[in-house]
Each structure stands twice: as structure tokens, then as C-alpha cells.
């Protein structure tokens, strides 16, 4: 017990401030989505989900890239901290891509007429979730922390290479997912022209969720460090 008290550090003040900022930003984003952004003409209220759908997808993407980078850095540097960062990024990305998929399904039902279509982005997101689950199962199966970190980093790397190729290979078929930003082809269903207020709301949501990502990432890394300390303490007790 005295050992724990000695080593356990409270949340730094900057992290506590970030917690408050994240909550306030989230409430503001929610307010903007429902009060500031105009109603879309054909899709009405259903389209509101778009802002958080995009924003959570963006966070998932950030997590995916962070995990890949941490994996490479671990293999180069062999420093346990990159393993903690990698796991944190994977877990956050897993949860946020799941939210994106669920939100997308809720949007897809009234717009496309089905909760799920085998469309490139949807399918890739689902496969990425599978990669993450496999990653977690792989970690679970290894006791030695050094080996766990090495294998996880290798698997993150393999996943990071294969998922974009998966996306491209599914994209060889035709797509019905709307490309809201950039070029818009008339073949897609559910696309719409964004007014400037909608754009502002979207970018605010993106910003908000980026802050939330940093906040969660920080918490999860801290948790990983604490878990590592607990492991060390257990070993000390055993000896």
C-alpha cells in the first residue's frame, strides 16, 4: 500500500483542464448540430448524424495512424512506452470506428434503405475492426511483455499495410457511399450540397473530436503506465 501511494501520481493539472475543455466542446458541438446547422432539405433530421459520423470516423483514422506510427517506432527503438501508446491508439480507434459504423448504419437505413451495404468504406471499417480484435486477442495470448510488444508492433504494421489495400480492392467495384467533400458523382445516393453553416458545424465537430481524441489518448496512455507500474509492484512483492 505504501508503495502504491509513493508511485501513483495524480492527474496533472493540464489533463484535468483538458477534461473540462473536452466536455464543454462536446456540449457546444452538440448545440451547433441541433441549433446552428440548418436542416437538410431531403433528409431532414437524419442528416444531423453526419457531423458526428464524420468526426468519430476522423478520430478512428487518427488512432489508426497513431497505432501504425507507434508500431514502427517500437520496432526501431525497442522502448516499452511505444507499446503502451500503440495499445492506447488501437483501443481508441476500435471504439470510435465502431461508433462511426453504428452512426453510419442509422443514417443508412432511411437514406439507402438498409442498415448495411457491402460498400468499400463500410466494409473496410468492419475489416479494420476485425484486425483490431485480432490484435487484442494476440496480445491476450502472450505473457512475456517484450514478446507481446514485438508481436503487437509487427501485427499493427501488417494491418496498417493491408487495410488501405483492402479499401482499394473493394473500391474496384462501384460505390454508393456519398463523397461529401470533394468531387461528387451523381451515382451516389444520399449526397447533398453543404451550406456554409453546415461546413462550419462539421469542422467544429472535427475539432471537438480531435480534442476528445487527445484527451482520451492521454488518459489511456496514463492508464497503460499505471498498469505497468502495478506489474512491477507485483513482481517486487513476489521477490
Amino acid at each position: 500500500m505504501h508503495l502504491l501511494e509513493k508511485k501513483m501520481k495524480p492527474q496533472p493539472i493540464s489533463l484535468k483542464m483538458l477534461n473540462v475543455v473536452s466536455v464543454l466542446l462536446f456540449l457546444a458541438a452538440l448545440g451547433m448540430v441541433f441549433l446552428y446547422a440548418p436542416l437538410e432539405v431531403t433528409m431532414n433530421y437524419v442528416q444531423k448524424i453526419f457531423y458526428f459520423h464524420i468526426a468519430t470516423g476522423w478520430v478512428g483514422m487518427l488512432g489508426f495512424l497513431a497505432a501504425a506510427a507507434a508500431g514502427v517506432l517500437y520496432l526501431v527503438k525497442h522502448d516499452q512506452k511505444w507499446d503502451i501508446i500503440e495499445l492506447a491508439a488501437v483501443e481508441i480507434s476500435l471504439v470510435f470506428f465502431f461508433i462511426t459504423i453504428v452512426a453510419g448504419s442509422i443514417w443508412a437505413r432511411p437514406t439507402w434503405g438498409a442498415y448495411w451495404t457491402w460498400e468499400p468504406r463500410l466494409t473496410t471499417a468492419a475489416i479494420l475492426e476485425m484486425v483490431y480484435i485480432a490484435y487484442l486477442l494476440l496480445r491476450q495470448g502472450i505473457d512475456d511483455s517484450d514478446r507481446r510488444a514485438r508481436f503487437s508492433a509487427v501485427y499493427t504494421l501488417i494491418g496498417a499495410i493491408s487495410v488501405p489495400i483492402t479499401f482499394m480492392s473493394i473500391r474496384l467495384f462501384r460505390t454508393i457511399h456519398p463523397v461529401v467533400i470533394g468531387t461528387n458523382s451523381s451515382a451516389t445516393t444520399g449526397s447533398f450540397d453543404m451550406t456554409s453553416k453546415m461546413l462550419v458545424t462539421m469542422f467544429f465537430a472535427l475539432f471537438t473530436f480531435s480534442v476528445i481524441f487527445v484527451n482520451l489518448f492521454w488518459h489511456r496512455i496514463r492508464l497503460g503506465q499505471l498498469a505497468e507500474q502495478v506489474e512491477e509492484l507485483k513482481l517486487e512483492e513476489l521477490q
Partner: protein
Amino acid sequence: MSNIRLTARQKTSSRFFGAVGAIIWKDLAAELRSRELLSAMLVFALLVTLIFNFALDLDPGTRRVATPGILWATFAFAGTLGLNRSMAVEKDRGCLDGLLLAPVDRSAIYFGKTISNLAFMLIVEVVVLPVYSVLYNMNLFNTGLIVVILLGSIGYIAVGTLLSSMAVQTRTRDVLLPILLFPVVIPILIAAVKASSGFLQGLALTEVMPYINLLIVYDLIFIAAAYMVFDYVVEE
């Protein structure tokens, strides 16, 4: 001077290929004597085709559409069985430790295991194709299809060998390999199924080419990636 350097390089490269060859020879010789891997893979592959027959009720109309999918699902399942076994044998009998002690580049072990795994998978495919042709009265002897099967198997085994050498070192090894492998070989399965069905339906080469290119790109990228990271997987 440059002559001496050249011969030195030739020596290392010949030693590398010698090591790769030795591992392949070891695997093939062991398999020739025990035949446990190939017979299991073959029986399994034939059983999977049998199950598909009843599961999908393969009348002639369905067959035409479903054949590429059935073939690739069969190869993928039989492939995992072989990969798991081939690596587990190394691990269980301490052979992997012996290989790691040998003064050769670690990637020689990777390439040796990959090529022998590929040989086993190709043997299974060589048996399954004519059997399938006879059972379902379809002509599968199509040069394009054979190229697709070769390219697809190379990619599948390149990733599979790397991941199976990871999976055997975990507690949950037998169940882990397919879970690790399938989500990352999806590009191979998509491209191989599409290209196979293109060739079987006699589509123009230009329509099939994107998928062939995808297979080649996947193979090259993953052989290179596995070559780079294999050291981390077997390091102790």
C-alpha cells in the same frame, strides 16, 4: 580488388540460398516420409468442397457463379491448417531453436519456410482442381486461372508464414492463426475470386488485369514487409 569483393558477396549469397534450399529440402523430405501435413490438408480440402456442395445446393447454374468462391474458401481453410501444422512442428520439437542457432541470416528461415509451405499449398491445389472439375463437370484447366491461383497462393503464404510463426509462440496458437490471418488477406481473396471468375467466364483480359495487378502488388509488398519484420518475430 573488386574481384575479391565480388566473390565474397557471391559466397554470402550462395550461402543464403544454400540455407533456404536446406530448409525447403528438410521440410519436403520430412513430409515425404510422414505425409501427415499433406494428407490432412488434402482430406480437409475435399471435405470442404463436399460441405459446400450440400450447403449451396450446387446445381449447374449456381456452380458457374459460386465456383471461384468455393475454390478460394477451400484453399484458404486448407492453407491455415497447413501453416499451423508446419510451424507447430518446428516449435514443438525444438527445431526452430536449432534453426535460429544456425549462423545464417534469419530471413533465410523465412524464405525457406515460405517456399515449402507454398509447395504444400500448390500440391493441394493441384489435386483439388481436377477433382473439382470431375465432380462438378466444369473445365478448370485455364491458364489464366492457374496464374491467379499461383499469385494468390504466394501472397497468402507470404503473410501466413509470418503470422503463423507468431501464432505458434502464443498460448492460444491453434485458434489464433485464422483470426490473425483472414482480416489481412482479404485483398488477396477479393482479387483472386474476381480474377478467377473473370477467367472462368471468359472475360477480356483488360477487365481481369486490375485484379491481377492487385495480386502482384500485394505479393511484392507483403514479401518485402515480412522479410523486414521476420527478425522481430523469431528474436529471443
